[in-house]
């Protein structure tokens, strides 16, 4: 074993010296390789962290959201639906919600406006998300003017700016009292945007959804697990789009790596011949080249992945956030919780390091199995 380790150390020493001899060429290759790993790892890390974040957020969301449908379109829910649902066994609580979107011409952005279910906002007051405050340059105590559905201006005093902690969902949020909400959107009392149901036994959620449909056939229950799946699908789709765009860069790298790794120069072929002539076995030459591939790709992988980790979790992925995060004009300014998926890491390793090492070995093997006598000729 000690002999084996000593032999590997000699081979690594030689490999490092050999790499240093072609410093500029190898440095260029490592730089491109690192950049590719960085880009792909950034996309994977960011999407994974977003999905995880969305999962955490939805843990606190209601198990079922009920929407009324009219002619297949989302419609307002009459208040008596809430009473009809309260009688269903297994339903712990039913609550009508008021929420909607408001396009603010000043910020040229869509805000989410809602009446909070767990607190009362006094009439004439408003609580805004940090992103809105930033975009409009607003502070607590300022008055915010909003145009109602009838065209009249509604003036609301900013009572509070939501903390940055939960920024992924609250950045573009406006919380108002019920009366102000109805005035803003022209929704008459007795109507809600939708209804949320809390279920005593999460395992029974599908059964309860079926009971709801029997009692209120013109509604559509949306389950939390379905929303979660939708989120996953959306982020997977975005991730896929970005990765597709990166295929070109990946192919360019493959060509570069193939050119570098497979096209053994006359010098390199001669060197292999000399090594064999002075007593190296084919296996020694292959091991040395394996180390070369492993050092180049391993370094590029570690450097690229570390840079990606730093880019995503320290700087919130400024290069890819706009396309990966979504449609909102107000990009929330938040920091994701560091999370690495082992399977993703392994896949990335498999698709970047292994092909490079393989591409290095095949031509070297071809050169190394030939008789070394050509160095004499």
């Amino acid at each position, binding site marked *: 074993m000690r002999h084996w380790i000593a032999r590997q150390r000699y081979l690594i020493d030689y490999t490092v010296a050999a790499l240093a001899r072609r410093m500029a060429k190898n440095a260029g290759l490592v730089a491109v390789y690192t950049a590719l790993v960085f880009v792909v790892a950034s996309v994977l890390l960011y999407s994974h962290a977003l999905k995880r974040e969305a999962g955490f957020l939805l843990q606190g969301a209601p198990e079922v959201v009920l929407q009324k449908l009219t002619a297949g379109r989302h419609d307002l829910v009459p208040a008596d639906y809430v009473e009809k649902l309260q009688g269903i066994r297994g339903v712990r609580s039913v609550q009508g919600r008021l929420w909607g979107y408001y396009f603010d011409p000043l910020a040229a952005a869509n805000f989410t406006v809602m009446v909070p279910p767990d607190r009362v906002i006094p009439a004439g007051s408003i609580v805004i998300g940090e992103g809105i405050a930033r975009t409009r340059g607003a502070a607590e105590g300022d008055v915010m003017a909003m145009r109602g559905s009838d065209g009249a201006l509604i003036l609301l005093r900013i009572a509070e700016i939501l903390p940055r902690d939960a920024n992924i969902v609250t950045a573009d949020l406006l919380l108002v009292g019920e009366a102000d909400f109805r005035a803003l959107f022209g929704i008459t009392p007795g109507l809600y945007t939708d209804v949320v149901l809390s279920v005593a036994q999460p395992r029974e959620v599908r059964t309860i959804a079926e009971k709801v449909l029997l009692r209120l056939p013109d509604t559509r229950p949306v389950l939390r697990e379905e929303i979660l799946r939708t989120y996953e699908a959306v982020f997977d789709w975005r991730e896929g789009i970005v990765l597709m765009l990166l295929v070109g860069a990946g192919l360019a790298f493959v060509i570069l790596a193939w050119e570098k790794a497979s096209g053994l120069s006359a010098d390199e072929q001669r060197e292999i011949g*000399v*090594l064999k002539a002075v*007593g*190296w076995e084919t296996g020694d030459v292959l091991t040395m080249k394996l180390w070369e591939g492993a050092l180049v790709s391993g370094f590029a992988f570690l450097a690229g992945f570390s840079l990606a980790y730093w880019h995503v979790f320290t700087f919130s992925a400024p290069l890819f956030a706009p396309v990966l995060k979504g449609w909102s004009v107000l990009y929330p300014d938040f920091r994701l919780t560091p999370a690495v998926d082992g399977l993703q890491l392994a896949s990335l390793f498999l698709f970047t390091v292994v092909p490079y090492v393989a591409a290095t070995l095949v031509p070297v093997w071809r050169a190394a*199995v030939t008789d070394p006598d050509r160095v*004499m000729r």
Partner: protein
Amino acid sequence: MSEAFIELRGVRKAYNEGLPNQFWAVDGVDLTLERGRVTLLTGPSGSGKTTLLTLLGCLARPTEGRVRVAGQDVSSLPERFLTEQRRHNFGFVFQQFNLIRGLSVLDNVMLPAFPLAPPHGELRSRALQLLGELGLEHRSDARVEWLSGGEAQRAAIARALINDPPVVIADEPTANLDTHLSKAFLAIVERLKDEGRTVILSSHDALVAEATIVDRIVSLRDGKVVG
């Protein structure tokens, strides 16, 4: 009579085998080389000197015939065992020296011993000792491309001796040297002979052919031994 160390029986070597331009570089050679002697292979260009050296030094296998080294038939040994023979029995000094550019003289000298993985300190001091004996110790850290022709050859000789082989093979060793350096090379060969090593040279340089240290001259023409 010295003990036979390398024996060739009916050895032939073809290049471009099976192709229209196939030719026999070595064509039916019987030869016995004794231990501890200096043998010179001589003959005009294309006579098969270098090919015969590759067969004697286990760098290539014969197309036909038998090669025995220290009593063992190596003609059809797998590559791995042939390497083992090269590593333990032969040190090579190539015509173009074939030092690895970009590496230091010391690294080049130590290179053949890397797969054997001796303790690094021992290997390094042996390499420095060899360089010292050849008057090159002061150049040990220099990159090989900075060496003069004579220095490069001495570095190549040190590399050939690092595994302490009983046989040293040198292909056209004086081809790139002036008379003074050629004489210096022959002095080194004399020392190797005094150490009990077998030396096989290929050359058509009269200076080498006339050297008193050469025990035997084998003349080749068209791949055949003619004298």
